């Protein structure tokens, strides 16, 4: 991607972000659920309701609220969370690393296992291994991730207690982290025992998220590989006497890779934004867990903040994927 294209993409992000801000702001105010009604207890009076509405600025018109919100937003002020009573941006950036680490481990697992299954199914096309791979894919896809989460807890945390059930770190461990990227930081610091413990906590939620994605990647890659494997240049490679493994991994795979890269990128974006249920089940302190709490409490500033940061992240990840795509496919280097 040329610098001009990159700049154009980044500039295009500005109106996109504005659109997101408008849509989220308006939607949150028209959907059912009044944050003040959610927080008042049985003995509160109408005066309490009016006072709270005023203190959170909800007594003003939607347009007035939006103008104020936009004014704050351009100054980098995302407001203060109603339920958590802290700066929204600080909260979102504090939780995002946990979700990014979870998504990263899940996507790594998905790619590794998805590739292995696709390569195995292609290498042994027509054999029972291909049937087994197809069967695994069907099961992995048919069961939703939250159900996988329950099954994995039952199997590997209760019946065979190999992994922790909940949390990101052992509650009894007294470790001070400088960043919120616990796993990355522990590896950089050379504390591999800690890294292993963190990976243990990540294992079940990451596998739950990864299983359906493994099936998707395996299917797409297998299909691409099977298309490539019947092309003339593969026949030429066979004639040259290349081994089956070399033909598959060195000749076919690079050309079959492009759709899978796009798919993986898109799914990584979905993973970052779609971890709510899995984070809740495993009590994993990521952004999905926080978003659930924000939605339950109708914490408008926090929901808005998370959505805006997600939108920005999605735009940046999309640009990154396009850049990767161009790197792999020389025809796109314009």
């Amino acid at each position, binding site marked *: 991607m040329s610098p001009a294209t990159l700049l154009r993409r980044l500039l295009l992000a500005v109106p996109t972000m504005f659109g997101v801000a408008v849509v989220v702001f308006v939607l949150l105010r028209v959907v059912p659920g009044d944050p003040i009604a959610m927080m008042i207890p049985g*003995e509160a009076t109408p005066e309490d309701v009016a006072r709270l509405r005023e203190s959170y600025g909800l007594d003003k018109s939607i347009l007035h609220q939006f103008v104020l919100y936009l004014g704050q937003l351009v100054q980098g002020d995302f407001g203060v969370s109603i339920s958590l009573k802290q700066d929204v941006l600080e909260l979102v950036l504090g939780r995002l690393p946990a979700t990014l680490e979870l998504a990263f481990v899940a996507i790594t697992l998905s790619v590794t296992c998805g590739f292995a299954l696709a390569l195995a199914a292609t*290498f042994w096309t027509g054999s029972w291994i291909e049937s087994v791979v197809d069967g695994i894919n069907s099961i992995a896809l048919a069961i939703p991730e939250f159900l996988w989460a329950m099954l994995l807890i039952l199997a590997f945390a209760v019946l065979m207690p190999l992994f922790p059930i909940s949390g990101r770190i052992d509650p009894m461990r007294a470790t001070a982290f400088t960043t919120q990227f616990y796993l990355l930081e522990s590896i950089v610091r050379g504390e591999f025992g800690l890294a292993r413990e963190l990976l243990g906590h990540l294992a079940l939620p990451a596998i739950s998220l990864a299983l359906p994605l493994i099936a998707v990647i395996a299917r797409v890659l297998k299909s691409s590989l099977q298309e490539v494997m019947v092309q003339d240049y593969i026949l030429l490679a066979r004639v040259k006497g290349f081994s089956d493994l070399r033909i598959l991994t060195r000749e076919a795979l690079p050309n079959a890779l492009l759709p899978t890269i796009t798919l993986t990128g898109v799914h990584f974006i979905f993973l970052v934004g779609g971890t709510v249920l899995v984070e809740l089940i495993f009590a994993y302190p990521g952004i999905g867990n926080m978003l659930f709490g924000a939605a339950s409490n109708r914490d408008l500033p926090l929901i808005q903040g998370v959505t805006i940061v997600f939108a920005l992240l999605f735009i940046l990840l999309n640009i990154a994927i396009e850049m990767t795509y161009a790197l792999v496919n020389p025809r796109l280097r314009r």
Partner: protein
Amino acid sequence: MKSVQRRDFLRATAAATALGIPGLQLWPRSAIAQTADTLTIAYNVSPPSWDPNTGPSSVSPGLSSIYRSIYDPYVVQREDLALAPGVCDQFAWNADKSAITLRVRKGVTWHDGRPLSPGDVAWNLNRLSTLPAPLQAIFASIKNIKVAGDTVSFDVTPWRANMLERLTFLGCYLIPPHYYEKVGKEGFEKAPMGSGPYMIEQFERGSFLRLRAYEGYWGGAPAFKTVVFKFATDAATRIAEIERGSSDLAIDMPWEEFDRLKTRPGLTGVAHPTTDIAMIFLHNVGVMADPNVRKAAVHAIDKKLIVERIQRGYSRPIDTLLAPQYRGYDASIATPYDPKLAAELLAKSGYTRDKPVEFTIQTTRGYKPKDYETVQAIVEMWRRVGIKANIEVYEIAKHFELRTQHKLAPAAFYNWGNSTADPESSLGSAMFSKSPHTSWKGAEVDAALSALFIEKDDAKRMAGYRAVNATIAENAYILPLFQFYQPVVYKTSLAYKPHLAGFILPQSITRAR
């Protein structure tokens, strides 16, 4: 491409096993058995904020368990909801019930070791009365705060009958003024401090809270030096935690699971009544303005059957908004199940099974245990006598919004908690039409309640509430259903005493003898 030979398969399996088994053993086996000094609780709510006196957290009963571990209330509420000496070891209304005097206990210290003074109590009362909090209108009655020696007194203007009870929990915890003023609002959120039996050691929002016993606690050292609250929003996670043994106590799970878990080796369980009731708001609009329809709706419901079949026996049918443990409860007020009477009442208004009266009933689905199933059963019971109710499922947020706007459907299922045990906090708020929480609007009830709100003679006040309750039941202005129970499963190595308010207080959990 290539056919698989048996030898290839066996080789691959052997390789995978060789890699896989040691790989699995690499993972640390998380603590199966807890250490003797640590108590781990699988809990369902994580504190959003550490300021216990303002914001939505301050009025969340579920968070009181955690707040009461860290902060002291002015006055302690015992397991049976009776008031007991706490930081304020003496507390009383004055003779004409216009003011309250609190005596501050000597020897109470904040977690930094600094003494908790009467001045600190006065600062907290002043903050309470001026803070823009959900219950500010109630605490705005705290006026003219005075410190004299070790006592703090304040006027209650306008008068509120349950002001003393209010000082025991929701939105009423003591925080250290010197520390709060030094670190500010945001600093306090990041590193909160109180005077309670436990201090915060580590908090991973949405994941866990680790507490350490405060050695200088005025009430003596708690049995466990370390307490871990694991925040598991999902019931399945809490069940897995207690079943595996990585938590010592777990709360709130489906009754089927409760019955299963409490019989497992090393575990036991208790299901105890709480100050939370299930009821149906009736709104006097349309057909619900007809007393025959309302009375029929009440008499057509077999609450005992609902409790037995849907709640598996773990709740108690009630006929008034006051549960047996509340002050002013009157067991003689009853609205028995009588489908024949219900059909007769409907017939008087021209309704039969073939020509039923029709209205909407709103309910949540999954907000409270078996809420939707309960409403389904009620609708079926109603159908048998000539009531056709259409179920409308909504989110709890929608319920709150409609309720504050007085726009609920003719019938709406809800639950109401009242940990003060004073009838003003439930009956008063749920039936007084000027409250943002009522559905029924009636001059007769309003007039009776208005008089009770200012009645200072406690005997007359309770008698008045009994009379209002009888009127409400007789005219079917609301439809009380049952009192909720709370399921708690814990290790047999623990001694756990249930709290009527549903609090899980680690300081009151000890080792079993």
